[in-house]
């Protein structure tokens, strides 16, 4: 076993410098256009107020929640074979959430005002108020959990309690985030009491994609650099779990699409027919970004290979990003109240500034992540799993 983390070496330094440059450039561009043109530099409008920056935030926030849930598998539910990825999952959850929040901050009209008006006005009727509360709680728990693992407390009573607290915070945060959309009866495309379940599933799917990709990245895309227990996980439970989660996601998309297309309500079926399914980007993201990865993960002969797993993680990354985009925009493309006054769906393509925010979030994620890999030992595992895995030569799947 030749355990190495390539990000601790010159490759990591290179990636760090590169992501920092992209971060500075994209932030600079977004900042300049926002300060010269304000939000007129976005292609959103009063009829379609939430665009790609919101979709990006949603994507990051949910990927973070998904990683938090994955970390709970060993820490709360005792699926010990996930121990080899737990520390990286928690750290990634933390930095992805920070990156998402940074994108959201650039999207809001008055971000600094938020810091005092929300706590001082306590509008508990608003799901967005609770989004703030739950995601802050989530961030604190993630940090606390990370600190416990840094101290080598994998199994102590308090680390269990922190793990349970963190799991609850993640469920509340992402479930409530779903309800921000799901409770809007005036937006029938979103209105759905089961939306939290859909968000949980897709959150875990995007979390797994991030985890697989970054784990391989840290190990130079080579299994030889990984511990035996990590190899065992990648050969056993993880791909099966990935397949199950992608299957659940597909099932959810299918039932939403079927009910959506079946209904007579134009605010739902027109969105599915003329916006989602009419778009080749949506079709590609669905078939190549979700269906194909599902099929690959179902095939026992290929799902364990490095190439397949890295490919699937990248495809799911892109597929779910598009899924979030079409979800957010799809809820708004039918002009409200305009009835037959409008002939067509509202057109929206993100502007360069909006793209720069997406890029900024991603670059921030990479920068913080590489810093984390270099400064912390994210591959740490409790000593006992290393021993177990090397004696048993892999762990049975519990997905």
């Amino acid at each position, binding site marked *: 076993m030749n355990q190495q983390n390539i990000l601790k070496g010159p490759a990591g330094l290179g990636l760090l410098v590169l992501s920092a440059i992209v971060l500075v450039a994209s932030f600079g561009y977004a900042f300049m256009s926002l300060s010269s043109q*304000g*939000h*007129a530099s*976005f*292609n*959103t*409008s*009063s*009829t379609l*107020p*939430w665009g790609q920056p919101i979709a990006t935030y949603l994507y990051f926030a949910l990927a973070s929640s998904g990683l938090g849930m994955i970390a709970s598998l060993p820490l709360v539910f005792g699926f010990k074979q996930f121990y080899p990825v737990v520390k990286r999952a928690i750290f990634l959850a933390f930095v992805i959430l920070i990156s998402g929040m940074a994108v959201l901050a650039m999207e*809001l*009209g*008055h*971000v600094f*005002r*938020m810091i005092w*008006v*929300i706590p001082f*006005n306590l*509008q508990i*009727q*608003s*799901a*967005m*108020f609770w*989004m*703030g509360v739950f995601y802050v709680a989530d961030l604190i728990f993630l940090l606390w959990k990370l600190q416990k693992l840094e101290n080598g407390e994998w199994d102590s009573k308090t680390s269990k309690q922190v793990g349970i607290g963190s799991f609850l915070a993640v469920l509340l945060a992402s479930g409530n985030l779903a309800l*921000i959309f799901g409770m*809007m*009866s*005036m*937006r029938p495309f979103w209105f759905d009491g089961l939306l939290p379940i859909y968000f949980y599933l897709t959150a875990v799917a995007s979390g797994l994609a991030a985890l697989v990709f970054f784990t391989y990245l840290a190990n130079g895309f080579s299994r030889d650099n990984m511990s035996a227990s990590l190899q065992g996980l990648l050969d056993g439970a993880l791909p099966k779990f990935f397949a199950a989660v992608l299957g659940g996601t597909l099932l959810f998309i299918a039932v939403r699409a079927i009910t959506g297309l079946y209904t007579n309500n*134009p*605010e739902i079926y*027109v969105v599915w027919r*003329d916006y989602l399914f009419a778009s080749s980007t949506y079709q590609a993201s669905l078939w190549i970004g979700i269906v194909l990865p599902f099929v690959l993960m179902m095939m026992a002969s290929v799902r364990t290979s490095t190439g397949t797993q890295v490919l699937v993680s990248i495809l799911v990354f892109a597929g779910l990003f598009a899924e979030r985009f079409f979800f957010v925009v799809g*809820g*708004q493309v*039918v*002009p*409200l*109240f*305009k*009835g*037959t*006054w*409008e*002939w*067509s*769906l509202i057109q929206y393509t993100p502007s360069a500034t909006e793209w720069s925010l997406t890029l900024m979030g991603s670059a921030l994620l990479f920068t913080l992540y590489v810093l984390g890999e270099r400064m912390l030992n994210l591959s740490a595992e409790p000593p006992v799993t290393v021993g177990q895995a090397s004696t048993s030569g892999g762990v049975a799947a519990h997905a």
Partner: protein
Amino acid sequence: MAKWGMVIDLDKCTGCQACTTACAMENNTLPGESWQDVLYYHEGTYPSAQMKWLPRPCMQCENPSCVHVCPTRATYKDMDAGGIVFVDWDKCIGCKYCMIACPYGVRFYADEKPLLEPDLREIFPSSNGQLWSPPYQNPEQDWKRGIGIQPPGVVSKCTFCYHKVSKAPAGTVDLDEDIAEVKEYVPACVRTCPPKARFFGDLDQPTSQVNQLIGDKHGVRLKDHTGNKPQVYYLGAGAGVPAFEPKPRS
């Protein structure tokens, strides 16, 4: 305190947009920031196709979904101001959740691409923290109620011309432009309406003109299934919004 309500008689409305213009002049709104607008619809097909139109201010809902979702209480319903729904521009963070939640599409984030060129914001650049500063503007400003020209990054909407209405003598029941003493306090859209299709008054007073019109002429509220319960009522045939129908595909 009164509960201010508006009645719009569609049998009288000619769709002339005088209300829209008066509102834009009174409140210095930008093109596209139509706190008051008239929307035109077609319904049905030949030989029974109809053309119809609907003036649409903020409905000042009794149960306003925009207020429920606002995380900062920037949007609030002021029962001491006749139940008008205001936006406090000192509290709004520009999250735009209220715009998602309003079923009537009457909230505006003017910090967006201009509807028309040249961009008025460039011609009259901002001063005093306003998004734009035209040389002639209504002197009435009250950022706690979203009155005046907004700063950047906040949401604006119809205020039922609270800066006028609030000056009406206490106990006023009907704010009708034909009553000389209260003429100045009538909302701009109501006062300007040439065929007198709009009425304004106290919904809490059984004898008010608005209540009598609603009762006698079968007033309805639009999109009542949303449960928002507007304080704006419509009279006359055709008070309804035809469903969205995409252009037939060629």
